[in-house]
């Protein structure tokens, strides 16, 4: 299973390295979202800094949606038939696809945070703040990628996949958005108080989305 996951992961990242679709298309979209919100909220730096944690995570979630779409379109030439003919372990396939998306998303989320620092003038409380935001980015990206890969597989047979995936994805991403925003807000100095329980929510989400995908991927791929 881990070998299969490794094969899929390596394949997806190799294709990304060759085509650079996520890098030259998804990343600019995330950047555009930050800039557009900057426009919309006006030149007042104070407002932007206050809104920054939420904007960061809106940008990350929307770009994750596009990254999931891209991850699915990589498999178009093979289709569901071709994927099944590769005889990969379904759990491995899920893990590979999800980890490939999450590696891309972790990169994007770091750059989005960096963008917020430069564009909105966000500042971390101290060094641990930076570390906590990095940790949040990693956990959030994992949770989003797990659920994205799962829903991608679920909507494979559907003709209305382009609209279905966002409909399924966004409400489930809402708690991720909430938890990550709260942690980020704390370490960008917007709120005070403990963020530990938010970290708990984020970890619980990551684990439960991973578990459902791990177990649920196989029946989604098979047709009996």
């Amino acid at each position: 299973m881990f070998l299969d996951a490794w094969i899929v992961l390596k394949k997806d990242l190799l294709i990304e390295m060759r085509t650079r679709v996520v890098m030259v298309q998804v990343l600019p979209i995330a950047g555009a979202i930050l800039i557009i919100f900057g426009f919309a909220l006006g030149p007042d730096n104070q407002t932007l800094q206050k809104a920054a944690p939420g904007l960061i995570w809106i940008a990350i979630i929307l770009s994750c949606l596009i990254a999931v779409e891209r991850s699915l379109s990589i498999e178009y030439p093979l289709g569901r038939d071709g994927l099944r003919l590769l005889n990969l372990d379904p759990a491995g396939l899920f893990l590979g696809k999800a980890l490939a998306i999450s590696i891309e998303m972790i990169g994007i989320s770091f750059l989005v945070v960096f963008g917020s620092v430069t564009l909105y003038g966000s500042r971390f409380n101290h060094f641990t703040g930076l570390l906590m935001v990095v940790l949040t980015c990693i956990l959030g990206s994992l949770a989003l990628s797990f659920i994205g890969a799962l829903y991608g597989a679920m909507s494979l047979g559907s003709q209305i996949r382009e609209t279905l995936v966002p409909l399924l994805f966004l409400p489930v991403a809402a708690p991720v958005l909430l938890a990550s925003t709260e942690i980020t807000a704390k370490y960008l100095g917007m709120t005070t108080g403990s963020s530990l329980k938010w970290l708990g929510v984020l970890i619980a989400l990551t684990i439960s989305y991973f578990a459902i995908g791990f177990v649920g991927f196989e029946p989604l791929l098979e047709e009996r």
Partner: protein
Amino acid sequence: MPYTISLKNVVSVVGGFPLLAGINFEASFGEIVLISGPNGAGKTSLLRLIAGLIPMTQGSGYVNGLNLQENSQEIRTLVSYVGHRPNMYDDLTALENVIISVGNSHSLSLKVKLSRVKTSKLKEEIIAAFALMGLPDRVSSTKFSRLSEGQKRRVNFIPLLIKDTKIWLLDEPHASIDALSREIIDSSILRAQERGALILIASHELEHVQAIATRTLNIQGGYITSGDQDVS
């Protein structure tokens, strides 16, 4: 001797449409069966059913003693299916594609798998297979999307040679390719037959395939309308 493939009254419904409407079919190792018939008659569906890719809605079907309904995943490791679309990623090289296709083949030992095909015997085998299919070395390191149609098809055959499965399901293997590619593919089919494989070929090009097939059957309206006697 039990049949390798045995289908009785098989109906397969996908999206509310009966792709197969009562197929009765039996075949044994060592045969090359040509499946002919007009477009949309169910040739591809029959192959996909045997490959465990579409569900069996009614009837009973066995491949190598395994029930099509319950063991479709195991069956998929026993058969090699070549669709009319190549089963390869455009942005990977031919060699990488082949490695992904065979990398998980169950006939390979774990050790070979773990060595990631870098220095192993498997890599030599794959290179030899490229040569066997008349593909020069540089083809193996070319992006798949940059290959010619005939080269793509030949590359698509390489996993079959490496995995050495005993049941080959070929969907239009001769469509839109040059004479050289056709010859190479035909000889690899015959070699597989010599090793005792069962090969089903769905094709429009009757004369070409009939030259190598041991028998021909006709499929129309989702079921088999005629089959002639074994020529050998």
